[in-house]
């Protein structure tokens, strides 16, 4: 008698690889292959639906049928590693980059990259944002030691095409307005550096200069402010930091190295 684990592995192959697996199934009026095909359709269908929810703009750009083909290829190569399907699809942009059939839509992977950041932002855990007030109690001589913790909804995304304009245009509800807006996008206008997060007012997509983006990258990866400032003009940095705080890029801070100063949580 086959072990359950073995049966489950073969069943996965049957569903994902479309292979005729050595699984002993009672056929009867309907043969085993047709019975298995019901499960294959369910699995591919459920996961395609999950991808569709995260990538509505990609689907609109390529159409339902093309999206379904791309999704199936992606699902077979990279099934979810978690049960929460909101977290499924992280690698879809990279997959689209290498998907030859999509090569003519050069900006598709960038739109997918932006949509994944949007999806992450919408499903992230709730966290209050660090306000400038919370930083007031940090003495001037310790400001260089400030280390920030990124807000859980924040993603920093670089794209080579005007992905935000395409994304906004393609998700316009009214079909006529949509095609006008899409026609107005200059695909050759270059790339963008974006911060995507969920704030009090909902989804926030912030365009950043390359230098501000690099600064944000250093701070959100936990490097002390003093270190991040070494390659940056101080005036610019003060402006950027105020801007990051205003958008709620950070959830919290600590001082590096940790010392006897009161923890942020205890100041109120």
């Amino acid at each position: 008698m086959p072990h359950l684990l073995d049966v489950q592995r073969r069943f996965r192959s049957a569903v994902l690889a479309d292979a005729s697996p050595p699984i002993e199934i009672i056929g009867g009026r309907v043969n085993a292959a047709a019975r298995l095909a019901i499960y294959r359709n369910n699995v591919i269908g459920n996961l395609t639906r999950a991808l569709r929810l995260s990538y509505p703009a990609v689907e609109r750009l390529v159409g339902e049928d093309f999206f379904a083909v791309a999704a199936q290829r992606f699902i077979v190569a990279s099934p979810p590693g978690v049960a929460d399907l909101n977290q499924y699809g992280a690698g879809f942009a990279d997959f689209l980059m290498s998907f030859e059939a999509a090569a003519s839509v050069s900006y598709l992977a960038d739109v997918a990259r932006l949509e994944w950041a949007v999806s992450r932002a919408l499903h992230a855990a709730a966290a209050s944002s660090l306000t400038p007030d919370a930083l007031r109690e940090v003495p001037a001589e310790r400001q260089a030691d400030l280390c920030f913790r990124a807000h859980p909804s924040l993603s920093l995304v670089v794209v080579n095409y005007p992905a935000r304009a395409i994304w906004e245009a393609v998700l316009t509800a009214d079909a006529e307005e949509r095609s006008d807006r899409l026609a107005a996008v200059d695909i050759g206008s270059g790339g963008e550096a974006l911060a995507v997060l969920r704030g009090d007012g909902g989804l926030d997509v912030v365009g950043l200069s390359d230098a501000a983006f690099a600064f944000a990258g250093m701070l959100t990866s936990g490097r002390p402010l003093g270190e991040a400032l070494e390659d940056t003009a101080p005036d610019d940095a003060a402006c950027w930091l105020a801007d990051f705080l205003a958008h709620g890029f950070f959830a919290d801070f600590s001082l590096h190295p940790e010392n006897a100063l009161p923890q942020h949580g205890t100041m109120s």
Partner: protein
Amino acid sequence: MAVAAVQPAGGPRPAPIPAVAGIGLRAPHHAELLERRPAVGWVEVHSENYLSEPSFTVLEQVRARYPVSLHSVGLSLGSAEGIDRRHLADLTTLARRIEPGLVSEHLAWGAVDHDFLADLLPLPLTEESLDVVCRNVSEVQDALGRPILMENPSTYLQFRHSTIPEPEFLGALVARTGCGLICDINNVFVSATNHGWDAQQYLRALPAEAIGEFHLAGHSEADGDAAPLLLDTHDRRVSPQVWSLFENALAIIGRRPTLIEWDAAIPPLRVLQEEAALAGRRLAGNVGEARDAAFA
């Protein structure tokens, strides 16, 4: 009174699920349910849809107005390798925050080698599978600190090496883990049709006292190579045969909280309420009147 009573810390206390009709709440009906506040006995949601914060906030508002049952679809309690601890931790957190009247899952599997296949896949019904499911159910119950209900699946195939009839498998699961059961009437009908079982006999073979809930939903007929199998599509009204089997179940098993589920081609909330009213009348014993209304 001069001093207000001290409220216990934490979320709402569990509201029991009454033995009346409830509806499966899906995202398209969130806003209407919260605004119109229709007279619905209770609601059941898929736990996996409320693991992220914004959706949780909606569920919290629903929970303030209706008793809530948490129905999971992703724990994969039939997985030979055991269940995903992270997912169980997420569910435990959700249950602590929502204090549901019931928590339930399915006799099925969906994950192997950390690949999640997002479907309720069939199990060979063997002693080995029974050991696996018992171990996994016990782990969930220990984590939640309460028994869960296990639902009979709708299936499209049977393994040749299965040795235990499904109702007996469920009965053994109840005896060994102390879990309860959801008797999904539509699933009984679908599986019985697909495998040539006797649906009445199936209902009689279940341990009636362990059944804590009924499910009702619509099904469709497969086409092409898969005809004449029935598919558990949850995309239409409950069929006349399933209503009739529900009446039999009420006679054999008794009244239980009864859920109307609808997951594809989701109609206006009003339609779910109509279906719930039809179930409610049967639960109240006015079976004849309800049948008249169904075909009016």
